[in-house]
């Protein structure tokens, strides 16, 4: 399975529709401080089923990921992220392995909570988390290194480190 395209709409500082194609090899993301680079990474972790709003740098509610306005634009009522996976290699888990592409969508509306979809079928958060666990990456995978967390593993306590190791085993 390959990660092809990430689409954001109303997610954090990306108030409008935004699309990024993830090509082969090394894709660099640059830009001034505070422009939204780390928000892109969080969009990826969010659509993969991240359940803790703290890990999204937010407060107590996951609604903090919805675009909350600027001095010239009003806030939005929903945020949506979709991730398109290329499955031509037919390596996805059995339940989703018949199609060339797998599109995972997560959408949150104020006061209504999150809804997940895989190829237009509404599914539970657990289904999305299982899909990604089976292709060896999850919202908390050690392969997704958030800003300032690169030394988290070596500074953690020994049992905490073993747990991170288990996640990648």
């Amino acid at each position, binding site marked *: 399975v390959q990660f092809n395209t990430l689409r954001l709409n109303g997610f954090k500082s990306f108030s409008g529709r935004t699309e990024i194609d993830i*090509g082969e090899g090394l894709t660099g993301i640059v830009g001034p401080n505070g*422009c939204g680079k780390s928000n892109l990474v969080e969009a*990826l972790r969010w659509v993969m089923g991240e359940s803790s709003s703290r890990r999204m740098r937010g407060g107590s509610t996951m609604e903090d990921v919805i675009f909350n306005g600027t001095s010239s634009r009003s806030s939005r009522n929903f945020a949506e992220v979709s991730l398109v996976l290329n499955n031509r290699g037919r390596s996805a888990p059995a339940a989703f392995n018949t199609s060339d592409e797998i599109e995972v969508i997560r959408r949150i509306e104020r006061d209504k909570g999150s809804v997940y979809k895989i190829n237009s079928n509404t599914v539970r958060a657990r289904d999305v988390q299982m899909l990604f666990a089976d*292709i060896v*990456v999850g919202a908390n995978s050690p392969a997704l290194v958030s800003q300032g967390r690169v*030394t988290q593993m070596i500074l953690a306590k*020994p049992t905490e480190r073993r747990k991170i190791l288990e996640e990648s085993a």
Partner: protein
Amino acid sequence: ARLLLSQAFEKINAYFQSLFINLFGGGEAYLKLIDSDDPLDAGLEIFAQPPGKSLQSLSLLSGGEQTLTSIALIFAMFLTNPSPICVLDEIDAPLDDANVDRVCDLLEDVSSRGNTRFLVITHHRLTMARMDRLYGVTMAERGISQLVSVDLDKQMSFFDIEEA
């Protein structure tokens, strides 16, 4: 699960040792499961000794040395169980230019070995220059992020994006 963990541990430890030597140009590093015979209950201890230095606790390593040691461990886990995507958010911030180059060499090497796609966020000009493609994120309108694709040939436009 117990067997899986101890097999993974052996592989990760082997990769960690060779990647550490690769990044530091020598020295020695290894992992150890401590406190219990059952891997699912044990703690993981990390030993790292940069070349020419005596073995000390991890807290005495410098900021850059801790980062390099962490990168060696992250890639060791990654090579043991490759995932389709890897995201690195400003891991080059504490590194000097020579180590930025070494980390980029490692990135290119790991990326050419498999099918993994990498997203690398950076402010460092040496890292930007090693990417296959670049996206810029700007806030032309304050508070609103927009994504633009940067044409690699126009080297200058990196810095325009950074300064915007």
